């Protein structure tokens, strides 16, 4: 079995090559309490900082997605304390200063791009902060859409911006105020509230198993994409 040498919070371990950081730490005997959620790259709970031997740089990644490498020095950061703006989404006035008014610190961005380099999702983090600063909510929402809120960018930012909360606000503003409303949805909700389907659904519920089976097997299927 090919092995690699890693350091977990300063202690040396030999683990099989090819494991993710998460599995390597478990192999070494660590049990996760914090720092693991989805184990699949979706929740951002497993933010990890590491350095490689002979390299001064700090790297960042997700423990559940990154494979261990020889000489990695690992530290887990399962939680980054962060300031979140509190708002009533119903009462926000949307203009190009809205995001700035909730997160004035975005004006401190020095365009160093450290956030972008830290992002395990490879998002253009600096660009969405810049878009937020310009008041381009749509752009910020789109660029920040795949953010898993791991906090790695925020930990590294010299301006101490909480990028993921900024992106969250941008998305909600876009989703609520800017994206066009769905007319067919509105219509269907109205029909349901008016009780249009109430009688028919009760009839369906009272059908015999035989009848239902038949209806199901004979139902027409809309062609796919």
């Amino acid at each position: 079995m090919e092995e690699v040498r890693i350091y977990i919070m300063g202690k040396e371990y030999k683990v099989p090559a090819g494991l993710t950081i998460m599995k390597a730490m478990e192999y070494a005997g660590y049990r996760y309490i914090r720092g693991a959620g989805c184990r699949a790259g979706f929740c951002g709970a497993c933010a990890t900082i590491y350095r490689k031997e002979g390299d001064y740089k700090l790297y960042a990644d997700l423990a559940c997605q990154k494979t261990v490498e020889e000489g990695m020095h690992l530290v887990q950061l399962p939680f980054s304390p962060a300031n979140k703006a509190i708002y009533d989404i119903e009462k926000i006035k949307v203009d190009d200063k809205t995001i700035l008014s909730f997160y004035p610190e975005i004006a401190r961005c020095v365009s160093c791009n450290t956030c972008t380099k830290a992002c395990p999702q490879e998002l253009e983090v600096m660009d969405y902060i810049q878009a937020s600063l310009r008041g381009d909510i749509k752009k910020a929402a789109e660029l920040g859409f795949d953010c898993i809120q791991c906090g790695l960018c925020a930990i590294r930012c010299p301006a101490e911006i909480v990028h993921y909360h900024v992106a969250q606000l941008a998305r909600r503003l876009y989703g609520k105020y800017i994206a066009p409303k769905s007319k067919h949805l509105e219509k269907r909700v109205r029909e349901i509230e008016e009780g249009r389907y109430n009688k028919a659904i009760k009839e369906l519920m009272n059908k015999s198993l035989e009848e239902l089976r038949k209806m199901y097997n004979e139902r027409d299927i809309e062609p796919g994409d």
Partner: protein
Amino acid sequence: MYPKEMQKSIEKVEKSREERLHKLPERLKEKEKEELLLKWHPDYKPEAKRKIRVGVSKNAIVPNEVADLIEAYPLENPAEIDLSNIDYQTDILIIGGGGAGCTAALFAYYNGVKPENILIATKLRNGDANTMMAQGGIQAADKENDSPLIHYLDVIGGGHFANKTELVERLVMDAPIIIKWHEELGVMYDKKDDGEMITVHGGGTSRRRMHSAKDYTGMEIMRVLRDEIRNIGVNIIEFSPAIELLIDDEGKAAGAILYNLETDQYYVVKAKATIIATGGFGRLHIQGFPTTNHYGATCDGVVLAYRMGAILRDMDSVQYHPTGVAYPEQIVGLLVTEKVRSLGAQPLNSEGEQFVHPLEPRDVEASAFIKECYGKNKGVITPTGMRGIWLDSPIIDILHGEGTIERRLGAMFRMFKRFDIDMREEPILVFPTLHYQNGGIEINSNAEVLSPKGVIKGLFAAGEVTGGVHGKNRLMGNSLLDTQVFGRIAGINSAKYVKNCKIGKLSVEHVKKYVEELKKEGIEEKRRAPMILPDYREKRVLSRAIDIL
């Protein structure tokens, strides 16, 4: 990059692509489906299950792993629990902070309960839950050619007609209301320029009614719910799972005992209403399968509610998602969303041949894959000896235009790219993986938990922890919906309930009785439950640790 052996098979896939592009196998007839399921679905293996020996659903058949937890003793001896020291007093205690739990909290608040009188207790971080991982989408019949009635038919047909009809009724009737609510909260659904929802098929749907937010649907919903919970100021305690429910002297639900995972302390929570929203059991690795589920999905809610007399239903049926990752090894078992097939990727055997329609209901699709690999020996074999089926993903960009995979399947694309596989150019390898707890605690359409004597007062449940909505097989997009619909109902009804409720003296009488029953059945005191977190440490490491002790 795939190893050489696998590349040879990829060449065959590429060779047959042109011819397959617009041609799909016919859908199976009812009889054919039944035969396939009986012979090849893991759920139909009798040796994998047994009858439970205690409790109100005694003799119900459940997977062995679940029976092991149900026939287990409490973590803490009930006789030694001191309930006189109350750490938290609240109107509503919500156990679990995934989609169902957060939605319940929000609707309790909308219905007049103050945020400081709502407490969410979660095992992991708020939101680190299956809801966050849902990729494919959420169903709702809101388009012109669709209706709640057609949705109803799909749900019960998919569930093999075993569903509880009053729950299905609520599921399909409330679905558009939920999507509208999401829209108002600012959830970014995929839409066309005029606001029309972009919807696709899922396995077993007769209309294109799957709404999505790229392939991060659950994450997008969960993030917004969590953001809203924080805006409103609902109390949350994280890393503090419930390990026992409490009752009062009238037998009403009255809160729970929480366990602080980091300090080993117990907290007594006294609550007028308790909502169980603990999600599913994927991390029990039923029959040794890998799983798509989050770390804390260990069946806790079922175990606790059962001790209190809740009926269990359809727990014999487990969902294996047909497309879990089979290669590379590091991510085996993780989900490849059904949306990959919805968008046109075709399942193929090692010869590059089609053998099943891509959009059969999940259990049928999974059985077809298992048969192809183990019955016909036409699976692709990986370096670690796993067998798998190709999903010909490059077809997606061919059918829908370049950039579709990156735009609409960003999470999938990213996951494979991290391991040097480019799904735009190469197919991906999949095999069924443990995905969903089809059954669970029985509720009525008010989200009240049922015992053989009727409603258990003050106890509500919503989401994957409950059974009945999906019958014996859940369709994609109906469980996100389930968490939202029944989370909402649980929130509304618990808010009503707490208005006129007084809690008496706290007790764990029900646990004492349960323990007596375990003893009477001669069950030894070896196992403890709930499990809370599975242990993935090496046996080698653990045995050494024990040596030292």
